[in-house]
């Protein structure tokens, strides 16, 4: 697409009332409606701002990367949690975040089926630790927005009986709203869409007391990368696909805005990045192995901004290794928003001008630390 065409396209879209400009981007007027108050110490950024624990093990995957070694994953999880909290005993580390009385949601990511999803082994190990702390299985919810995606990944056989598998909608068709909270939402007019509300998943606002977020290391066509922030935010609200339209994305400001809505912000207490496998292009999908890589890592923290800031460098480095354009590339020449197939074929094609700056924007909302020199990454190699 010609730059002139793109600029004209941008200019043609009338600004919604109350919208502001920031760094050449439109920041819509957001109306946040929530009856929930923030906790005295909100879960994000939590007790460990600016801290990322990175546990690596070459043995976590088979040599070809296709099989996960559950025993190694268990050890990685134990080491990571102890390192994050400074506790000597595994369960004491988990008790820093969870009590037996909690109702715990585990936010998984199923969009990268089959290769890059929240892995069965990490989710199962999380559940095992929650139960060891004393949380009853019927007070544990493994959740995602879309049931069809959950069915594909199929966690149930890997979890103890009684653990709830929960999806807010049958599939992404925008007809199924009963599991969203009609009184907790963010209202914004992005492109003149009729439905201007995104409602929080009812489970989050009305049932859960704590949330553990398990995203993946993934490239994303709209946000540049999708990690902690986008998984918890776009996976916790309805009607979010409306933020991308004809090559333009409002994810820059919307991801952080959603993540900061109470009670999501207060209740999301732990971030576990499943980086055993990752996808460096074509994300959030990973239908083939074409763009899949194998970091063999699991990260731990409470600060989603810090973890996602580190994530940018990992995905960017992998793209660079393959000679692909940067996720920061905003050249309209690379844009082909009418054909996702071209994006899948060519890592130098964007379908949307990506907005990795959404992570810095979230930092401004107080969700975490963005400056890379203030982020402490502690690495453990098993």
């Amino acid at each position, binding site marked *: 697409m010609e730059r002139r065409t793109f600029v004209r396209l941008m200019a*043609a879209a*009338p600004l*919604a*009332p109350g919208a502001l400009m920031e760094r050449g981007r439109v920041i819509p007027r957001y109306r946040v409606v929530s009856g929930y108050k923030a906790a005295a110490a909100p879960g994000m950024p939590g007790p460990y701002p600016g801290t990322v624990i990175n546990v690596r093990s070459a043995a976590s995957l088979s040599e070809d990367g296709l099989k996960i070694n559950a025993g190694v994953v268990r050890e990685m999880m134990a080491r990571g949690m102890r390192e994050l909290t400074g506790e000597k005993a595994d369960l004491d580390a988990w008790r820093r975040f969870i009590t037996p009385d909690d109702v715990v949601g585990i936010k998984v990511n199923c969009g990268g089926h089959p290769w890059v999803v929240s892995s069965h082994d990490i989710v199962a190990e999380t559940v095992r630790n929650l139960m060891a702390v004393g949380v009853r299985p019927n007070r544990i919810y493994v959740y995602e927005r879309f049931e069809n995606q959950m069915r594909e990944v199929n966690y149930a056989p890997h979890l103890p009986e009684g653990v709830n598998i929960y999806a807010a909608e049958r599939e992404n*068709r*925008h*007809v*199924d*709203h*009963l*599991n*969203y909270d*009609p*009184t907790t939402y963010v209202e914004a*007019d*992005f*492109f*003149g*869409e*009729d*439905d*201007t*509300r995104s409602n929080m998943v009812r489970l989050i606002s009305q049932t859960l007391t704590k949330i553990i977020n398990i995203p993946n290391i993934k490239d994303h066509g709209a946000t540049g990368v999708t990690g902690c922030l986008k998984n918890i935010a776009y996976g916790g609200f309805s*009607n979010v*696909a*409306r*933020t*991308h*339209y*004809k090559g333009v994305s409002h994810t820059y400001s919307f991801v952080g805005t959603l993540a900061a809505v109470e009670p999501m912000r207060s209740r999301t207490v732990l971030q576990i990045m499943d980086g055993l496998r990752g996808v460096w292009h074509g994300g959030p999908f990973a239908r083939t192995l074409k763009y899949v890589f194998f970091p063999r890592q699991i990260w731990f923290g409470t600060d989603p901004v810090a973890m996602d800031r580190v994530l940018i460098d990992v995905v960017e480095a992998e793209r660079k290794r393959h000679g692909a354009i940067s996720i920061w590339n905003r050249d309209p020449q690379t844009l082909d*928003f*009418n054909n*996702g197939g071209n994006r899948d074929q060519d890592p130098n094609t964007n*379908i949307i001008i990506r907005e990795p700056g959404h992570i810095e924007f979230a930092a401004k909302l107080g969700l975490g630390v963005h400056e890379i020199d203030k982020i402490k990454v502690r690495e453990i190699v098993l």
Partner: protein
Amino acid sequence: MRPRVEKVVIFAVLVLLTGSFFAGREVPRAAAETGAESAPRFPAIYWTEGVETADRIRRAGVEPIAVPAENAAGWRGAGIKVVSVAKAELESRRKTLVPRIAGRGNVASATRRPWIDANGWMYIRRPSGRYFAELPAGRAALAAAEACVYQVDLLMKIEPGDLEAVGGVFSYFRSLPSGGALTPVADLAVIEDGSDEVGEVMNLLTRRNLLFEPLARPSAKYRINIRLGSKAYPAAEAADPSEFALKIRRQLGDEKRSLRIYGSETVFARYSAGGGVFRLQLLNYSNSQIDGLRVRLLGAGVAGARAWAHGFGEFAPETPVQADGAAEFSIPRMKMHTMIEGRLASLDRRFGHGRTLHRDR
């Protein structure tokens, strides 16, 4: 001479029937000319099958039916209530679109807004018009519901297999309470010049649930009076009716709109009020059931509201909230049509032309 006689007969029968289809609504005829829901009209099936189908017609509950003039006597002989329609009469009627989702203009669109063929704008524009629809299999029920919502004189040529579905729609609408004379609520006026361009503007406004009243001249009642070709609304802008509708919406301001719908872009609304009550009718143009549709009605009261949904019966609106001068509630589930009635809570003249609408009892 003969056609003239038939016209007289048709008119007489129509007048007779309109009184029975939406029983209990008695309002001045003049109001009907402004689109008020006060002179009930009815859709009817135009049936070209043979008289041997009389039992099906009777069982379907769609009487009276309209039939070709040459068949009328036979049908009457079979004991079926019919309206005789001459070919010329049929051809003189305005053709309607088959209501449906006609496709998605841009599959990459984040707005999910599909292209919808609907007739509401035309029914608002010409409430006294006489219409004719030729409906392929599976499309008659929605067309019938659309005509019932707007109370227009529509003859529907349907596929025989759709007879029972249409009968179900008629039965459902007959079962709804008749809340008295109500006037459509509007937030703006469109100055009518009879042109296709203005018609397309009306179409897009209807599809965006931007409530308008067609007027011959601007009215001080409305902050926004759209006269296409004026300095404020150049005719060239209407070349992109969708953008034009968006401009109007933003001029109006979402928070000042009488009606907002959250959870679908395939549901169009008919919002009426008067005498202290409101009635909202929602038509879903998709084939999908919608669960948890959220509605915001400016000026409405949420207490005591009642609702009915085609296929589900009466229900209570869920999660009601009264705030900022508006009522909000959720429709737990709806397929093709839902109606909500309740009391108004506003003195805004949009809701009943300045009458005192809220009285404590």
